């Protein structure tokens, strides 16, 4: 059974602090408004993607939106929760346990539940900037990556975010602004980092035979790859994201495509260095050359990578990020992305990951 995306929504990301219920309901309301013929009674499963500590959110969301699903549950897997939830929804439909699955992701900006406090191998250096800085330093050392190349990653994402009405920040930044932004560590500046924010996003998954009832242009999930290598940052090789390499190979193989067939991609740029490593490890460019690719994308106004502005440009509401990435690629493949539109996009890719890439999900989508 093929699985289609028949609707999606993303609310405006902000630095405010709406309740988690408000965030979940807002994305759901918007999805219902965007999707023709959709009725609450159609929905077999409600999956909530969040790191929030509140309990029982999928039944709560269902009740607040008048849905009485067979299946209702939360999925938490740090920053990768969104793509993981979509894979779970896909599985329910592929196994014919459900025909229609509503997946809603949400996160609040200020929320202690976003922190992974288990990883003792980080010693007292528990904050994500420390793994970000180690990845950056190692990439600089091995491939000669420069601070300017890293600044272009941030510039590209912020530039793309200007055309994304859901982005938390649509300000323009010059390379100088980025290079001169506050230095957080020897290898990371403030504008190299994505920022935790509040936001929500929803995707409606349906079995292929029902897709046309809800949309004139369904988008299909044609490849899925997932890999967990560990939960400890220090188990990683510092210049390579092994979980992303493995997940990408699985997804390409299932979709029967090669990396060079990807027309548009949303990748998990938690820090600028992550985008470079991901582009290399997805095979979109050879190892050590992602900096040059990003510079070219920037100079030619090419929106192929992170058309919505990625995590750095749009903001990073953890549980919503993967869903918002998927919503963007669905919109791109439908030709509905307005000023962000990549011309003639037929094959799209989403890469979402958690905790210094100790786990990754890669999805291939087609129209």
């Amino acid at each position, binding site marked *: 059974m093929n699985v289609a995306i028949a609707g999606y929504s993303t609310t405006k990301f902000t630095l405010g602090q709406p309740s988690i219920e408000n965030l979940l309901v807002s994305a759901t309301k918007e999805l219902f408004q965007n999707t023709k013929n959709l009725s609450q009674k159609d929905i077999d499963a409600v999956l909530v993607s969040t790191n929030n500590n509140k309990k029982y959110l999928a039944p709560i969301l269902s009740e607040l939106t008048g849905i009485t699903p067979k299946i209702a549950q939360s999925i938490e897997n740090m920053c990768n929760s969104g793509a993981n939830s979509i894979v779970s929804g896909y599985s329910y439909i592929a196994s014919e346990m459900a025909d229609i699955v509503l997946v809603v992701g949400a996160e609040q900006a200020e929320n202690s539940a976003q922190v992974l406090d288990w990883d*003792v*191998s980080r010693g*007292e250096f528990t904050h994500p900037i420390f793994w970000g800085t*180690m990845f950056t330093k190692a990439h600089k050392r091995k491939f000669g990556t420069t601070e300017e190349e890293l600044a272009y990653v941030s510039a590209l994402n912020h530039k793309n975010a200007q055309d994304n009405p859901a982005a938390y920040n649509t300000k323009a930044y010059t390379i100088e602004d980025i290079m001169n932004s506050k230095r957080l560590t*020897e*290898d990371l500046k403030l504008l190299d980092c994505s920022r935790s924010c509040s936001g929500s996003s929803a995707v409606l998954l349906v079995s292929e035979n029902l897709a046309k009832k809800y949309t004139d242009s369904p988008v299909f999930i044609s490849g899925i790859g997932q890999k967990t290598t560990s939960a400890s940052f*220090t188990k990683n090789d510092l210049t390579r994201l092994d979980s992303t390499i493995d997940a990408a190979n699985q997804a390409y193989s299932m979709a029967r495509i090669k990396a060079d067939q990807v027309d548009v991609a949303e990748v998990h740029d938690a820090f600028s260095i992550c985008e470079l490593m991901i582009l290399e490890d997805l095979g979109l460019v050879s190892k050590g050359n992602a900096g040059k690719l990003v510079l070219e994308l920037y100079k030619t106004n090419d929106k192929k990578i992170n058309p919505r502005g990625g995590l750095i440009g749009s903001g990073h509401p953890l549980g919503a990020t993967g869903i918002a990435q998927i919503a963007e690629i669905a919109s791109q493949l439908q030709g509905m992305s307005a000023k962000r539109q990549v011309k003639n996009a037929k094959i799209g890719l989403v890469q979402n990951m958690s905790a210094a890439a100790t786990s990754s999900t890669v999805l291939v989508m087609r129209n």
Partner: protein
Amino acid sequence: MSFESELRQGRFTVGECEKCHKTSWPPSEFCSNCFGNLKYRPVKEPGILLECSSKDGTIFGIVKFEDSIKIIGTINGNVEQKPGQMMRVASCDFDKSPKFTFTKS
């Protein structure tokens, strides 16, 4: 005896399986290979520096001990070291998280 309680005494230890003799890192109650009981013993030094960086003048780095025990700590004396440098533990403690200071071996 556990990783945390030993660390509070300034001793850096690793669990070695009583059945299959493999070490388990990060610290755990049972062997991650065969679920056998672990016996905590001192980690063999020196280790090797894999990477380092700094924040506000404090240099920190990842050091690998034996084949698989990797941990982030402060570099003693704030002297930048190159990856590949042999390092030993100058001090260690536990207060909410493990705290390590490494020094050039």
